[in-house]
């Protein structure tokens, strides 16, 4: 086979391979949409995070604005400390409320941000003061039972 034809077929093969990598990155994966050019970290403390995991989405008004970066336990206050990165394009007021919510009945858990009305904005590294923990089903049931019993 001539050198030119060989080069042509190999070039065709490599181009096809690279095109499929690109397809996997852009169409299958989320390189295009979730590529936060600049992001900043915020921290929130929760009494109970339920089943929240690293890389879980952070949503505000239902739109994904960030991802959970790290979860660890604070041995002094016995609380869960959740660090998450927020897309640099978005700013939230100082009195923003962080809740742990569940997508659907059995879906994954995510952090919801409810913006407050403060004029000062959260900066990188700030701690969100007002949080609401995950709903634990057993607690909910026992609360309901106690209420019924006291009636």
């Amino acid at each position: 086979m001539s050198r030119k034809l060989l080069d042509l077929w190999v070039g065709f093969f490599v181009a096809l391979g690279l095109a499929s990598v690109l397809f996997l990155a852009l169409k299958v994966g989320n390189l295009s949409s979730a590529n936060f050019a600049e992001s900043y970290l915020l921290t929130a403390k929760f009494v109970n995070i339920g089943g929240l995991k690293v890389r879980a989405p952070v949503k505000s008004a239902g739109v994904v604005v960030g991802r959970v970066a790290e979860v660890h336990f604070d041995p002094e206050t016995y609380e869960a400390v959740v660090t998450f990165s927020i897309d640099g394009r978005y700013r939230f007021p100082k009195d923003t409320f962080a809740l742990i919510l569940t997508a659907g009945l059995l879906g994954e858990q995510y952090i919801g941000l409810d913006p407050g009305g403060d004029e000062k904005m959260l900066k990188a590294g700030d701690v969100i003061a007002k949080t609401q923990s995950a709903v634990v089903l057993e607690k909910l049931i026992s609360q309901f039972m106690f209420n019924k019993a006291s009636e």
Partner: protein
Amino acid sequence: MSKPSSGQHVLLSIVARLGHQVNDALQRLGFATRFFIMLLACSGQSFRRLNLTIREIYFSGFQSLLIIMVSGLFIGMVLGMQGYETLQRYGSADALGVLVALSLVRELGPVVAALLFASRAGSSITAEIGLMKATEQLTAMDMMAVNPIARVVAPRFWGGVISMPLLAALFSATGVFGGYLIGVVFIGVDEGAFWSQMQASVDFRYDVWSGIVKSFVFGVAVSLIAVFEGYDAVPTAEGVSSSIKGTVVKSALAILALDFVLTSFMFRET
């Protein structure tokens, strides 16, 4: 020392055979390691004649295109059908895209493509080098002061290493397309949900990139096994055929074992 009884004699010969086998295996492993180092050392020399490597990419990469794409398409279509069958019981058929894409990109793409590559390209590399050895072409090259590792072995090795990740990516891409074909076009899962849920759950760095790294590692393993088996073949018709068998069996085992090790490192829940 008294003469050993026949029972002792049998026992001793079994132990000796075991020792012989272990020694043999260790020697082969040592030889394979030295061969790999020699191969890396000669790579610079063989890259100076790049058209040799390009030729090998043509033979092991381009000629595997058809089998890789057809298998990828069928595996994607089967995943689409089976996944839909299970997911619709829980009312979450919309998650079909996630299921197809994640299982292909993380596992099936790299692993099945590498298994196909080992039997399609690896075996032919072994056969070629083994036959060259059997007909004393490698010795002849050595006589003419042409290093057979730089001239014959290294281009085939690098051709395989370069082709493998591209083939695995192609396999995953055609598989996702097959899943789309069955899920969206034939069964009628909502197209928007199919793609958007897929994009929301497939992370480039976490899923796609680790699939590419996996296929690169498999490429190195399969190509090394293929060229070594050929180079180390017993130079007879029987020896070459047993080397080819060795390539396919050892590559398959190496791919599956490496896949377990890599997966346990990459997808550890933090």
